[in-house]
């Protein structure tokens, strides 16, 4: 992760907040209409506008940079191919996020099935760990609470992870999340409640362990 540029969500050029002015929505509609007619330039503008948000959503779901790059490409390709079926019932980013989420879920399923790849990745990781033991130790010392939260987030079930990502990284409302995930708002509330509680419990147990370790040492 450290090799990839990180920016605070408040400092990037494209705001992650979903408080999109209607002018952008209108512009989206024009670009979508042009893209439907095969205008690739128009679609490139849509890609430029939403690629960071889609990439971050996919990256937080998959936690792997290269894989997130590939799945982001697949998301936009699926969007291009699915444009004829986009009727404008939902906003374009909502529709795009739904595709990104489904592509991420599909990739997570593939990962589960592809056990050989997992074993290979683990073996590679062990080798890398052994080679970089000193660097690893230094990194462990430097780990802060936020990194731990990220790690715990990646171990949550996908249905809980997505609501936390949409709510806190993409700053979405319950209504927007319900639209993207095609779930009732009540389910969104329940998933958010359980997700935060799981995260809280895991962090608390970690804190307890570190306290005990510190006392024991």
């Amino acid at each position, binding site marked *: *992760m450290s090799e990839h540029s990180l920016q605070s*969500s408040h400092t990037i050029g494209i705001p992650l907040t979903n408080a999109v002015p209607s002018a952008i929505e209108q512009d989206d509609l024009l670009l979508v209409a042009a893209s439907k007619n095969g205008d690739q330039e128009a679609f490139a503008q849509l890609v430029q506008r939403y690629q960071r948000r889609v*990439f971050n959503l996919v990256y937080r779901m998959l936690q792997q940079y290269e894989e997130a790059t590939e799945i982001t490409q697949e998301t936009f390709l699926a969007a291009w191919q699915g444009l004829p079926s986009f009727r404008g019932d939902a906003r374009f980013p909502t529709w795009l996020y739904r595709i990104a989420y489904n592509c991420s879920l599909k990739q997570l399923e593939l990962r589960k099935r592809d056990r050989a790849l997992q074993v290979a990745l683990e073996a590679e990781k062990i080798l890398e760990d052994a080679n970089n033991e000193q660097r690893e130790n230094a990194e462990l010392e430097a780990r802060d609470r936020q990194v731990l939260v990220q790690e715990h987030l990646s171990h949550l079930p996908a249905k809980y992870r997505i609501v936390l990502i949409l709510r806190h990284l993409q700053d979405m409302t319950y209504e927007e999340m319900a639209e993207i995930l095609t779930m009732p708002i009540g389910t969104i*509330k329940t998933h958010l409640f359980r997700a935060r509680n799981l995260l809280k419990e895991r962090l608390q147990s970690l804190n307890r362990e570190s306290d005990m370790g510190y006392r024991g040492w």
Partner: protein
Amino acid sequence: MRCKEATQQLQLYLDNRLTIKQVRALEAHLAYCNACLEELTIIEEVVNDLQTFKVVVEPDDLNAQIMRRVAIAASQRNAPASRFSLWHPTLLEIVVAATLATIATIGTILQQPSIRALLPFANGHDGLSLAFLNILHTLMTVDSTTLIFALWIGGTILGICITLILAGAEMRTQWFKAMMELLPVR
């Protein structure tokens, strides 16, 4: 308000999803309940941690990569021959298919006495038509259901054969593979 109810509302409180009445009731509870206040602080910390997640910058050439794939997809979609790209039968396949199609339609022709009379064969006097009429008579004497069933089976087999021959080698391979997968025992 009880602690259980308060705990359930804490997250909604942080997300501004409570009504003014609910907020007042919860805040009144928090004013005297240290346990719930502590719970609120912990959840607040978790939420703050989540909200300070850094934005990861995508690769510089992501847009170009996406548009390259879009261009390929667009060119494939616009290609007029793509719909029949798998259909390229050989001359032999066309001849065999045409022969089978002729055999399949010959029964219909032979059923018409006026057409039969015009033909130099199958008019009731030569060997071919006699053999055909004998087979037809045998089937008719068994019973009409058997005759229809036999014709239906024969027609279906002929139809499948013609379709497969015309579909080309690649499509045939795919069809056989699909059929083999459907078999319960391999």
